[in-house]
């Protein structure tokens, strides 16, 4: 640590602020993009009234969220009811802090990274924090004291716990090849070949599990609106609902970032031009890849139907987990043979 | 810089609070939670010793304790569910079919 503590904290705070701002804006526009794209898939127009092409729609939504009345159900467990959305959003935001999006640059004369916290077991940190996200959902459903919320949260909780296993196992293959849990080193190790090629099976497992982990279609059983109202956040309104909403989209961004880092070579891509461009091109490639995943999310939502709950569980436990285990085994055997 | 004894005393306190919880709590789930707290106290002691001794085995012990705790939790909660199914209560004082 060559950097003085004061500077370190200052730089970290600046990065946090930027990340928060970018992320919140991004989430708002992902939502707009989702509505637009799904509308096009379904031959509709989508939001087009607020601003040109509906560009100010997110702002309008935000105002609406803030101005709506806060409703707390009379029979709710007040404290837990209040805590649940906060847990969700905090966990989602903390997870993103270890995601690197580019190389190294200089700030105030000190070298620093395109990343809030550069820790050497970033992937483990991510998995750890993501495993806490389930509390938000479970507590939300239980504390609302409503049967739809309750069933939604039970479904969501068990789904997340189940698919977390497959998600973690899918990441082990690439980690074994890279020999590190440091996200930067994993990216560095992919300078020759992106891990999507040797670890294609793991990539597919990861992608599937990630959809389930973020409770998105086709695995959005926790909030299957046809059956359960809005699932675990049925009883939430206004800002508290917005927090769940925010958490869901931030989680989407996080898992997309991890997919990019671990399977798609992170910020690797053709780099050329003047130094300033060389600095920012990797970031651009990274964002492009993440954008692709986000588009995939929306695309899938527009096209695929929802799984049935028992199919979801059977698929996770009887297919994905054994497949992921086999993948770990095969990766290990191949690695030891090649050594 | 902190003496090792601080960590160990914290671990002892956690352990003892767990022991107290085991005796005070009336519902079986909370009793089980107290046992988990005791195990956490032990884990802290293991890691502290591991640090002081510069020996990696303490870390490994914690790993194994977690494995054991996971298996224990699965079975323990299953037992609790079976009991509640049979008895419709969580209160440990109602577990008195057989005289103690």
């Amino acid at each position, binding site marked *: 640590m060559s950097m003085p503590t004061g500077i370190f904290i200052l730089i970290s705070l600046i990065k946090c602020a930027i990340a928060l701002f970018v992320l919140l804006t991004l989430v708002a526009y992902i939502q707009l993009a989702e509505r637009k794209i799904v509308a096009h898939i379904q031959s509709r127009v989508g939001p087009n009234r607020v601003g040109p092409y509906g560009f100010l729609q997110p702002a309008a939504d935000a105002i609406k969220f803030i101005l709506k009345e806060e409703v707390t159900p009379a029979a709710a467990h007040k404290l837990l009811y209040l805590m649940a959305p906060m847990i969700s959003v905090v966990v989602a935001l903390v997870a993103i802090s270890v995601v690197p999006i580019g190389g190294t640059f200089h700030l105030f004369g000190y070298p620093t990274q395109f990343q809030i916290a550069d820790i050497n077991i970033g992937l483990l940190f991510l998995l750890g924090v993501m495993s806490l996200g389930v509390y938000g959902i479970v507590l939300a459903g239980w504390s609302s004291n409503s049967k739809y919320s309750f069933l939604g949260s039970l479904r969501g909780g068990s789904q997340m716990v189940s698919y977390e296993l497959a998600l973690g196992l899918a990441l082990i293959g690439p980690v074994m090849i890279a020999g590190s849990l440091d996200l930067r080193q994993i990216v560095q190790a992919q300078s020759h070949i992106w891990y999507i090629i040797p670890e294609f099976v793991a990539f597919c497992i990861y992608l599937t599990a990630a959809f389930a982990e973020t409770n998105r279609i086709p695995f959005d059983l926790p909030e299957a609106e046809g059956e359960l109202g809005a699932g675990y956040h049925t009883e939430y309104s206004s800002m508290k609902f917005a927090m769940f909403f925010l958490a869901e989209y931030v989680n989407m961004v996080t898992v997309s970032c991890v997919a990019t880092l671990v399977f798609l070579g992170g910020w690797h891509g053709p780099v050329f031009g003047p130094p300033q461009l060389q600095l920012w091109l990797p970031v651009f490639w990274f964002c492009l890849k993440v954008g692709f995943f986000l588009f995939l999310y929306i695309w899938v939502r527009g096209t695929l139907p929802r799984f049935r709950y028992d199919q979801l569980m059977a698929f996770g436990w009887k297919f994905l987990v054994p497949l992921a285990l086999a993948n770990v085994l095969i990766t290990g055997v191949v690695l030891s043979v090649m050594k | 810089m902190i003496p090792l004894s601080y960590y160990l005393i914290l671990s002892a306190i956690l*352990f003892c609070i767990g022991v107290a919880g085991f005796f005070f709590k009336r519902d079986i789930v909370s009793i*089980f939670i107290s*046992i988990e707290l005791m195990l956490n106290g032990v884990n802290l002691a293991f890691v502290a010793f591991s640090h002081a001794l510069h020996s990696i085995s303490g870390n490994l012990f914690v790993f194994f304790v977690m494995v054991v705790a996971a298996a224990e939790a699965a079975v323990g909660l299953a037992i609790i569910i079976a009991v509640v199914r049979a008895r419709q209560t969580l209160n440990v004082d109602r577990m008195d079919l057989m005289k*103690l």
Partner: protein
Amino acid sequence: MSLVPAEFYWRILPELVLAGFGAVLMLIEGGGRAGNRGRLGAYVALLGSLLAFGAVFIQAANPGDAFQHMFRVDGFTVFFDFVIIGATVVVVLLSMDYLPTQHLERGEFYALLLFGTVGMTFMVGSVELIMIFISLEISSISTYVLAGYRRHAPRSTESSLKYFLLGSFATAFFLYGIALVYGATGTTQLYDVARASLTPIVGGGEADRVLLLAGALMFIGLGFKVSAAPFQVWTPDVYEGAPAPVTGFMSAGPKAAAFAIFLRIFYVALHSSGHAWFWMVYVAAILSMCLGNIAALLQTNIKRMLAYSSIAHAGYVLVAFAALGPEGISAVMFYLAAYVAMNIGAFAVVSHFAHREERYVDVKDYAGLGFRFPVPAFCLSLFLFSLIGVPLTGGFFGKLYVFRAALDAHLVGLTVIAVLNSALAAFYYLRVVVFLYMRQPAEEIAAPPMTGAFSLVMIACVAVVIWLGVFPNRVLEFASRSAAQMLR
């Protein structure tokens, strides 16, 4: 890469066989036709436990350490492996009768039995505390589940719950003890601990005190497992509520294994502080004997009575334990071997008479059975006589060696208390015999058939009890040799 040489596998062969057959049982349970699964499972489990029993001979032929000095095959290990796996064979045979009677026959039961045995055998062979802890947990967790196996019977689940909560509580103490040993000596390998406790690395002169505290904590944990007073509270309830063959199993396998690690930990690792923990053992021995026997006098439920009697027997074992020498160890070993045979035999008869839903487990139900079912009643009487310590039974020599070891160590007071207690114990054992032969039945209990499995159980247990009672020398010599070997 000679990380795992071939002889390591020979040294853990019984465990491998048991675990392998346990896994096969799970596979059978998953596939196959529903009707026959349980029966097939029973035969597979029987085969597995018999093969494991045979594997102990192979294990015995390959003495030495395995897996980075975590596991050690010596006479001590082999002796307890025979006792424990033998108990498992008997319990499997017993369950082949019991489970169909209760309409509960499923392969998982046998799988858990075998896995539990894996835990116990690993336990007695391990010379490393974390390994001991893990195998202790394997054996405990499978026993918790087995105790609650009749899960629709409130008593069974309640018994399982009490066993589980108190057992985990005790395990936490045991674990804290391990942590302290690790902190004081920097190792958890028992023989290294013994060496390191002479030249401690942490805390200078305080290391002795830390080790003593560790010993006390481990004593609490293991005291629970062997149901020694004052940690015996769970025993009667758990023994009463658990299915009868499981109770027999619990009173034999886990108890023998827990005593085995008790011996190893205290005699080997904590040898240097022996003068201090001697008093813990002393007090626990007296408490267990007196409390167990007096409470047993008041029971009418046979399972509860045997539970209290098993507390008392733990007390006798602790008497030998307090002798602090190789004679003490060999006496403990011999006593446990005899105790396992007679106690499982007694529980076998109890489970034989228990009938559906365990209706007949009161001493009154046994009135007049002596003439209606002469063979089981005779065997039960024999086991009870052996538990009293009548000559020509294994129990006699067991007690004799225990008392001799205690007297050799000049523990006269303790020996006197133990002898008085043995006399007291005769009352409640004899009461059952009186009911068997001298009372008229109030209600005719249904006739359980004498199946082949049950006959085998009876033959095996009677044979061992008589053998140990008539020709004790070979076993005792083996025990003495292993004791000396273990202490080296």
